[in-house]
């Protein structure tokens, strides 16, 4: 009775995962979808705790289980509530890493069980039926989970600025060799696990961790969302390995579903940047020093004062705001909305041009501006915005850089060549707010800043917006 009820629980959970993911891909039902999937997860967890039977025996160690769940749940809920909107991508990466680590720990623990249950210890030939395929999924879960964990931690550190890009000559080759060694060792264990070589399991674990870290290290910060999405699907596959291990269908459906959807999502993200996944993973342009030094002397740029900028915008017909990561860092979305309202009162038409990969994650800007109550109708997607730039008087670029870099259209040698951009240079004039002349995340110079139509307005986005608001009010 218990076991069949549990099967039903897992069935319900699997359906909610599919339904949840489906609903998450439509704005109208997304929030409900998330809650439905969460509900299914609760059913699966409670069902497992109370109904799971192993050889007719219920689970024990309830104290440890509930203790662990309570600690993890409180810490997770606290961190998720406290995190600023700008730090969301890091948070997702961190949680993803936790899932990967969880899968690796499960594999480690199950591996120990092999040592305990075989006699003589660690003899692969004396393992019960299906021992070989058990060991296979244990090793797969270990490698994928560890890579996902280490990679996610590095991605997390990079996004919050704790870790810098790190490359060395021949790194890609070294990484590939590292991975091959780890896989060969795993294959060797699979064929001939014994009491004398079981320690190699920990070597595989260490190699997988190092590989995960080195795999993410050279990838530029601007590409982190793609990497996180990819690692997300890795963790899904690691969870599915657990599903194989325990013949658990909820883990299997959830894991594979995320693995497949995550892979597609990764590809969609790459498409939004007009790049291939291989290019993102191997290109590693964020850290390449040549890109920065190769830029030719581009002449001088001109600055504009707050007063002049306020004047130009207040008397324009149409102003287009291009938000970027700088806006997110400065938490300037509310000030931005205030400026918009003020300009609208003055009879100026104000729109936002949203590049699909502006910020650190696709959709980042939409979420941020929605938080500040900016109306959805005023957010223009890239194609629509590009149609409107020729009739725009002033473009205000707030902390965006690579997504407005004309080199992506004109300079085939540029690392971002081919990426669709917001063609702000089509507008009559352009005011660029940045903190300094430092290149953006792609590490390349931006011709836009040196064009005669462009004027620079240096400073923190929030501070500049507040000054602009004060100035326009006093006009």
């Amino acid at each position, binding site marked *: 009775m218990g076991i069949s009820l549990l099967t039903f629980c897992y069935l319900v959970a699997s359906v909610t995962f599919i339904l949840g993911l489906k609903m998450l891909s439509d704005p109208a039902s997304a929030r409900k979808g*998330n809650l439905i999937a969460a509900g299914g997860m609760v059913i699966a967890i409670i069902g497992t705790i109370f109904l799971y039977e192993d050889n007719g025996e219920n689970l024990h160690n309830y104290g440890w289980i509930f203790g*662990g769940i309570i600690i*993890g749940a409180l810490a997770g809920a606290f961190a998720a509530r406290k995190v600023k909107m700008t730090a969301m991508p890091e948070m997702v990466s961190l949680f993803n890493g936790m899932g990967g680590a969880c899968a690796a720990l499960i594999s480690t623990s199950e591996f120990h069980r092999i040592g305990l249950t075989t006699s003589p210890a660690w003899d692969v030939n004396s393992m019960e039926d299906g021992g070989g395929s058990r060991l296979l999924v244990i090793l797969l879960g270990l490698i994928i989970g560890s890579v996902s964990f280490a990679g996610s931690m590095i991605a997390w550190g990079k996004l919050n600025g704790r870790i810098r890009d790190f490359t060395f000559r021949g790194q890609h080759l070294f990484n590939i060799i590292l991975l091959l060694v780890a896989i060969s060792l795993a294959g060797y264990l699979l064929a001939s696990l014994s009491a004398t070589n079981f320690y190699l399991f920990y070597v595989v674990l260490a190699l997988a961790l190092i590989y995960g870290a080195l795999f993410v290290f050279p990838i530029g910060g601007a590409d982190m*969302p793609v990497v996180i999405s990819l690692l997300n699907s890795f963790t899904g596959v690691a969870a599915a390995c657990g599903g*194989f291990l325990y013949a658990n269908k909820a*883990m299997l459906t959830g894991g594979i579903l995320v693995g497949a959807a995550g892979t597609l999502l990764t590809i969609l993200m790459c498409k939004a940047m007009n790049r291939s996944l291989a290019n993102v993973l191997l290109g590693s342009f964020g850290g390449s020093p040549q890109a920065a030094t190769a830029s030719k002397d581009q002449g001088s740029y001109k600055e504009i004062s707050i007063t002049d900028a306020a004047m130009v915008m207040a008397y324009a017909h149409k102003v287009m705001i291009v938000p970027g990561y700088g806006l997110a860092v400065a938490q300037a979305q509310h000030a931005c909305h205030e400026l918009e309202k003020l300009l609208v009162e003055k009879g100026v038409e104000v729109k936002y041009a949203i590049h699909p990969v502006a910020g650190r994650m696709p959709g980042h800007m939409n979420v941020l501006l929605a938080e500040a109550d900016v109306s959805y109708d005023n957010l223009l997607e890239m194609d629509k915005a590009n149609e409107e730039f020729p009739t725009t008087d002033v473009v205000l670029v707030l902390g965006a850089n690579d997504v407005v870099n004309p080199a992506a259209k004109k300079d085939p040698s540029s690392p971002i060549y081919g990426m669709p951009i917001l063609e702000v240079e089509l507008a009559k004039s352009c005011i660029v707010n940045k903190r300094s002349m430092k290149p953006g995340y792609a590490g390349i110079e931006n011709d836009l800043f040196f064009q005669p139509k462009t004027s620079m307005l240096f400073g923190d986005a929030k501070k500049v917006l507040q000054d602009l608001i004060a100035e326009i009010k006093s006009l």
Partner: protein
Amino acid sequence: MDSVLNWISTNQQMIYIVILMIFLGIEVIGRVPSVLHTPLMSGANAIHGVVIIGAIIVMGKAESNNYTALILGFFAVVLGALNVVGGFVVTDRMLEMFKKKKQKNGN
């Protein structure tokens, strides 16, 4: 060759699930607008937190004097719970903002 075929026939249910889920996963999010990429990634992140079930099983099967298993299992449960709860809460927070905007449009 025999062992491979054997393996397929013993695990055929699981293999069917894997294949169908791959197609379903791709189909289900195929038409997602780019606005929802971030919340969708976050939601998917929470769903793979289902790995916590494995952690609970590991923990629950551990003999109470096997400290290695207990400690490994305990950490796995903590991390899994972090992934699940944190994942769903973060996703909900992101989507909350979309909802606020919608109500405003309705007015």
